[in-house]
Structure formats: C-alpha cells, structure tokens
C-alpha cells in the first residue's frame, strides 16, 4: 500500500515539475499561438531543488524541478507574460529572493533567453552568456536550437 502512495506522490510531483519544463527527452510539440519558450541557465556549486517561478500575470507560482551542480539550462514552454525566478531549495534551506526575484517578459512565438544566474552563497548574480546557453541547448535540444536560434545547432 505504502509503495502505491509513494508512487502516486512521486508521479504527481514529477508532473508538477515537468508541466512547463522541456527536458532533453520531452516530446517535441509546436508552440500554441500565445506560447513562448522561456530559457535561462543556472551556474551553481550546489545542487538546487524545487526551483520556483512566478507567473506575474496570474500571480501564481510553479516549480520547474532541479538544477545539478555545474551549468544547467532550463527551458520552459509558457503562455506569454512576465515571469520571475523567485527561489529554490538547497540542502535543507529555502532561498527566496527579495522583491519577486529576477523578472522578464516572455513573448509568444519566440525563444526568450533570459540570462545566466550564478548562484553563490549568499549572492546570486544575473549576467547573460548567450554562447554558453546555445552550447547547452544544442546538446540537449538541437531541434529547438535549430528552429529558433539559427546558429550551427547540430549536436
């Protein structure tokens, strides 16, 4: 019985984290008219869990899963609007950024590369590094890379 509960719970959590996130093995699907890709890179020395994003338009937040130690590109398929990176769990701590964290506007029909977050204790900095993002995206999702970026995106 316990196994079934654990299984159901883990499936639900996996569902929550993968609703918007495009993983390397997610099936390819076209963007709807009001949807865009929202991408950013996390550079961290410790594994981050339950990364939280706020949808400013609806004032609701959702989780997009984890980021392993090192560089992780995160691409989400979301409806057009303003989104903010507001926090994450690390070890047994919860980090919530002040004032809604880091926000940007995601446009429909585009791949909206936001920035690269360098997560260090206690400060997170945001600085775009587009070439690093392209490198990561083309190794994980060459299809999206080719469709939206137009660089040499063959993996």
């Amino acid at each position, binding site marked *: 019985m316990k196994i079934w509960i654990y299984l159901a719970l883990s499936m639900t959590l996996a569902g929550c984290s993968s609703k918007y996130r495009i993983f390397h093995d997610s099936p390819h699907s076209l963007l709807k008219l009001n949807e865009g890709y929202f991408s950013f890179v996390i550079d961290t020395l410790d594994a981050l869990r339950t990364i939280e994003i706020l949808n400013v338009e609806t004032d609701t937040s959702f989780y997009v899963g984890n980021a392993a130690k090192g560089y992780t590109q995160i691409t989400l398929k979301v409806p057009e609007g303003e989104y903010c990176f507001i926090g994450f769990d690390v070890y047994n701590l919860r980090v919530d950024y002040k004032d809604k964290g880091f926000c940007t506007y995601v446009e429909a029909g585009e*791949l909206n590369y936001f920035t690269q977050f360098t997560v260090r204790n206690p400060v997170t900095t945001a600085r775009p590094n587009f070439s690093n993002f392209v490198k990561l995206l083309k190794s994980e999702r060459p299809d999206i890379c080719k469709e939206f970026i137009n660089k040499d995106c063959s993996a």
Partner: protein
Amino acid sequence: MKLLVAILFLLTSSNCIGEDDKPRNCNKLNNFFPYKAGIVAEKKEAYTLSFDIFCNLAFKGDYRAQFKMAKYYKSGIDEYVEPNLIYAYVWARISNFHIESRKRDNFIKQLKTSLNEKEKNQSDKLFWTAVRVIPGGARIDMKYEPIDLEKILEKQNHKKYYTGSRIKRKTPPENLGIIYF
C-alpha cells in the same frame, strides 16, 4: 565672490538650455518604462507611445525593443513614422547582432531583398556606425509597476496638434538619421 556665483549660474543655466534644444534620438518620456509597458501600449493600439517606449529602450540596448523599431520602420505609423526600409533593416541587424534568432534573421533576409544596391550600401555604412555606439543584447525589464496607460493616453490626447498653415504636427525623433550621444 558674487561675480563668481553669477558666472557659475550663467554657465549652468546656459547648459540647461542647450540640453533642451538638443535634438533627440527618441522623444523624451517622463517616466522610465520597461519593455512590458511598450507591449501593453501596443496591445492598446497606442502605437506612438509604444514607439517612444521602444525607441528609448532600443538606444539603451534592449534587443527586443530594437526589433520592434525595425518592425515599426517597416510598416510605419500613421502621421508619426514614415516607413523607412533602411532604418528597419539597420535596426533589425542591430537587434540580431548579440543575440541571434531565426525569426529576426528571416526578417533581415526578407528586408534585404527589398533594398536596391544603393540602399544596401547606405544601410551597411549606417549599421557599422550605429552598432559601434548603440549597446545591444540586453533585456530591460524592471519589476513592472502597473502603468495607468489610460491617464498617459488622455494626457497625450490633450496636446493640440495643428495642421495647415500653422503646421505643428506630431514629429517623430531624428532616430538613426543622426545619432546623438
């Protein structure tokens, strides 16, 4: 001492007058507007306001606003912006210089086919001048405070613009024709 103060005052005030008279790349806005404000204005069909917001952001390096400028210069805005394919082409190339996208690239290719050889040469020169002085690759988003666009639009509508012999039409900024810094 008094003389020194008077000279200083004159110098400061003359500097202020100079600033006001100086032609601008973009029309001055009273507040800072982030990219989202331009989108909101565009959705409300307040195209002149949206153009002014994007123009200010484009000269600060927002590549999305630079692409919007390209689109506005391609289509033009009634009684505000004349279509100008050279400006459209140059803004599109600036927007795609640091952060590449297939969509922008296709737009550039399409525009290029509409330019003749003379216009291509002219736009190449303008592009290399502009890209050296206009920053790019940025996304200028601040935490968006809901802007009362209705109020701003109402204020805009209260300004009187005369046509005919007392011509005083709304004029767009000089923009890329001459770049002031």
